[in-house]
């Protein structure tokens, strides 16, 4: 045992894991306390295997009686597989980022002699830091034979990769010899979730965020919370429930758990706060949208929590002049003029002098004078522009043909497919 320990330390030092070689190797004499470690994941419920028979069968009531006598069955409904008996975790299992690593540390004096001044220190060495996890740093004055020092440590895992739990025990023998030894318990922290995001820009200032969350562990996961914490610029609406009369039902059905390798899509709608939306020019380039906060639970409430890094989004490039729609009817009558209101925003850094031209397409006919002067528009300023047009063709028609020319730079901006409108024949619709 001792020899091995010496080797371990030597090896680790070789590997450059930033561990100093201990000052003193444990000597080969007894007494020596021992360190035992057990990871405390949640216990599991024992499942039994129901094998039943009927009274008329050969074993008669034998099987039934055996099952009734079995302490792990549910009395009264023995055919129910999932029992109530708790069993301790039988192996280390996997540990995932965001989960809490709990462990029982038991320091036991197996020898027949008393040892004194025992100090147990549990440190967790990650690839970046070393944390002290021991509850107390006080030495225990004496440890009698067959007795032990118990400690339960907890640590929320915040790093992926190799972790090493270092248990250092220093003590004094009855002979007054000061001794010291360490034990290392190494484990890997894995990634539990795979998160992918995608942004969709609406015609308005709204942004839709689709987040695909995949469970890449080997057990099913109950998603307790998947929320988007928006940055200060946005308000968020979660679109993952369907509102019925009084309470919303999840879009994922009755059970909100994810089987291994299952992916689920969450949708969020982000609206810029009014004070930011006013200055439309402000939201451009890269903006911070917010971050996803994910809380999940597994077996008997084993909890995990993760946050993504700040999600960033490139606002769609509007060029120098942005044309957006303030108002448009969804359905209009054939060959009847209708009104739309456009909003023209100067997104550039300079003042513009704009001229509006309206070009008819085969279906859309603009009413009014083309080549109208809109006047000067300063940076980040906008102006509302009511326009009238009619359609000569039925069906879903795309509104196109607006041209803005900046007379300062002699640059023309074209706006096609600004919006769609449904054109119906009024007589037909009246009949129906």
């Amino acid at each position, binding site marked *: 045992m001792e020899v091995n320990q010496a080797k371990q330390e030597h090896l680790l030092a070789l590997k450059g894991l930033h561990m100093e070689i201990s000052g003193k190797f444990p000597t080969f004499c007894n007494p020596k306390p021992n360190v035992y470690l057990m990871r405390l994941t949640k216990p599991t419920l024992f499942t039994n295997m129901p094998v039943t028979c009927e009274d008329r069968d*050969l074993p008669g009531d034998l099987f039934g009686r055996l099952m009734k006598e079995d302490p792990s069955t549910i009395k009264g409904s023995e055919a129910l597989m999932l029992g109530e008996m708790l069993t301790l975790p039988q192996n280390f299992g996997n540990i995932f980022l965001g989960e809490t690593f709990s462990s029982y540390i038991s320091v036991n004096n197996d020898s027949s002699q008393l040892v004194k001044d025992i100090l147990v220190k549990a440190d967790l060495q990650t690839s970046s830091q070393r944390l002290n996890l021991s509850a107390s740093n006080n030495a225990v004055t004496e440890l009698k034979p067959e007795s032990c020092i118990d400690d339960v440590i907890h640590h929320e895992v915040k790093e992926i990769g190799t972790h090493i739990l270092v248990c250092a025990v220093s003590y004094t023998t009855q002979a007054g010899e000061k001794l010291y030894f360490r034990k290392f318990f190494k484990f890997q922290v894995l990634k539990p979730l795979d998160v992918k995001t995608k942004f969709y820009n609406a015609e308005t200032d709204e942004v839709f965020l689709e987040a695909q969350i995949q469970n890449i562990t080997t057990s099913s996961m109950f998603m307790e919370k998947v929320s988007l914490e928006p940055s200060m610029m946005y308000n968020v609406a979660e679109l993952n429930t369907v509102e019925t009369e009084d309470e919303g039902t999840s879009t994922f059905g009755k059970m909100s758990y994810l089987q291994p390798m299952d992916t689920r899509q969450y949708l969020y709608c982000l609206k810029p706060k009014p004070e930011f939306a006013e200055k439309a020019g402000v939201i451009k380039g890269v903006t911070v949208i917010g971050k996803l906060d994910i809380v999940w639970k597994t077996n008997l409430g084993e909890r995990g929590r993760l946050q993504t890094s700040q999600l960033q989004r490139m606002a769609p490039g509007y060029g120098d002049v942005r044309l957006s729609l303030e108002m448009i009817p969804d359905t209009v009558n054939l060959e009847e003029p209708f009104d739309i209101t456009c909003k023209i925003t100067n997104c550039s850094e300079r003042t513009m002098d704009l001229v509006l031209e309206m070009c008819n397409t085969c279906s859309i006919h603009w009413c009014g004078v083309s080549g109208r002067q809109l006047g000067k528009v300063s940076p980040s300023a906008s102006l509302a522009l009511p326009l009238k047009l009619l359609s000569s063709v039925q069906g879903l028609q795309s509104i196109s043909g607006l041209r803005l020319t900046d007379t300062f730079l002699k640059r023309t901006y074209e706006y096609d497919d600004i919006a769609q409108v449904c054109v119906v024949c009024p007589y037909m619709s009246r009949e129906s």
Partner: protein
Amino acid sequence: MDNNETPAQRPVTLDITGTVEVKPSLSEAPISPEPSLLPSSDVHFQEESIDLGGESFITPEEDSHSTPSESLMDKLNDQMMESVMISDSPINSEEDDVVPMDNLLEQFEEREEEPAAAVVKETLVEEEKEEVGEKVDDLIGQDTTEIKIEAAMMQTSPVASSPEEPLENVKQKLTTVDQDVITVSVSAVTPEDSTPSSGSPKPEAAALEASSKETTSKDESIPVCTIFSQGSQPKAQALVPDGFQPTLIKSPSFSSGTGGSTEITPSQLAPLVCQPSPSLSKFFSDSGHVNPATDFFDSFTTSSFISISNPNAESPKSAAPPERQLSASSGSSLSTSGLTESGIPTPSSFIGPTQTEATPRPLQQAPVEPAPATAPQPFTQLQAVFSGGDDPFATALNMSEADKRYDAWLPSEETRKVLISMATQQYSQVFVERERLAMPGLKFDNLQGDAVKDLMVRLMGEQAAMKRQVLTANSVEQSFLGLKQLISTKNWRAAVDLTGRLLTAHGQGYGKAGQPSSHNTDSLQLWFVRLALLTKLSLFQNAEMELEPFGNLDQPDLYYEYYPTVYPGRRGSMVPFSMRVLHAELPQYLGKPQESLDRLHSMRTVCQTILDNLEQGLAEDGSMINLTQENRQASLQLWKSRLSRVMYAMANCLLMMKDYVLAVETYHSIIQYEPQQKVQLLSGIGRIFLQIGDIKTAEKYFLDVEKASLEKGSGTTDTCVLMNRAFIYLSQNNYSEAHSSFAEVLKIDPKNPVANNNAAVCLLYLGRLKESLRQLEGLVQQDPALYLHESVLFNLTTMYELESSRSTQKKQALLESVACREGDSFNTQCLKLV
């Protein structure tokens, strides 16, 4: 280690960090992660692997069965895979973002409208990067400052990455709460540790050297992480590379289909195929003695049309050379002496009576049986053995309503046709294709042995093992009575042996599968018991092999109508309903839950149809026979309970498949058939939700349980309610409250084994190992009948391992108490002695 760094080395390490930064991005490139990386980056990977600690990358699932030379490469490969993972982590996040910048440049060039600002931004990023590089140069080896650098990188990088494709999927890096930017990229820093101090600019050779050194040292006894490390470390290492030993008992619902997980069910660990041991067939063929069990069966079922096609029915005798009779004396004395020792009538004593009973059968064509060696016993004794006797005349007369009720089954259309023609052409032979008959036979005939005794011999020597006395197939009466005795004393392995003997006597012994034989009620009951016991013993593969000749249990010769002369007037299935359930449930234990579901669904359809028939005033099989009200009620009740059994099986199967939605639905639907089980079922559903982690819904169900138990009006708080409350506390990590809830249950029901065990488990989580141990030990000593259960023993041994280096001795003490009380079916794995 870091302090050993000499300033001269730094430029070298800077170079390395630079390349390392670029390389993972190559592998992460969106287009195609080519395996062919730059050779230099390959080397860096190796270096990385060294620093990240060699064997650490062998996940618990991977075993160390590769030879050292192979494992070197394997390990390196593993690490290369892993390193991609690492670059996913927040640590190296800047690397993802560096690449897009190159692409960006090109893209920007193509865009007309894009102002120069973007380019400026870009160069800014690059500048920052250089700064960072300088910082690295300065601060290399100092963890804290490096974190800052990472932070800086993080802030800059998104600017570069996101403009590229704003609508593309952006893989978000996960970081934990409170820690958006973390960790030093060890990969970047560590190469310097392994580079020789000579400061050579190309560290490849050195790195290789280091890596080989590394791997060789790996092969020596290694380090670290042995959970429950025992004295002999190298040995443990050979088995368990990472020290995380996959062991034992996990509830099947958890472990099935978990793929790479380390959880292993006892069934997976258990030897699925029986150990080679003295052959059972030797019992018949080599003893030279007339098979004592052969004549156990009255063979009147060997009616004319069957015996023609069934020459092997009597084969144990016909195959034996005639001189066996002559040489029997020595062999028989051997076996009989063994039997008489245990004070049980010699098996040969049954031969006579069966002969006498066999005489009335029509057209006996079987080879003439050799005359019994010993005098026949009184007829009455045999009658006692055949409690549910199948005397054709008796059954015809006593063909009770109960029989009809229990035997009812709906055969498939094809089978039904055969059976009808059988009934109409009673005296002429009906030709049935061989393929359509059930022709079972034993698929293995070795004796099952006693694992407890084997373990005792191994650990404590023959002397101690002598104390272990269990019943074997030899030590009981060779009859149903003996069989029941073995089952009730939990000697299921011996019981399996005995069923084998009895079935061999019936002509369905080892190697008889695929050979025509006849069935009767008793043979099918024997098969049922045998298969049920195999299932209970988790010998699923054996059970499946032996069930295979039965097909879907719908062959015509499994119905009474097929034997009009033997069972005149009797109708329905010879196969007991429980055997059908077993047949349906079996595939799920062998990783084929879908097949189980299919079978269960068709069973459910039959049950439902029979119930519908009964409710419409018809007989079970839909015929117009009038049933008395009493019989109808009895039948309705029976079939409802059967339906609920099938539903239970379905729900259990769904739970195993982790299809929790359907499982919960199915459990819920059982309430309508078994209203008296409402409390248990609702609690069970609640526990399923707890298992998933959905505590809120679980609480909802537990509230329903409370209501239901109030309705029942038990007055005092039900133990069930308290138990549920404890589970909720447990799920909230509130172990002390959970413990007191379990303690409250014990106030009401001090002998409740579940509450006792669970309270002890809570104590461990509260850091009170000694108390927990004392409690469990006390329980096992005081009431071994209740607490020598594998779950309790498993908990106890786990705590022994945590508590003391003398766990093996303590476990052996447990084994001894097991040996005194438990039968040969005890699952020794829970003692974790192997």
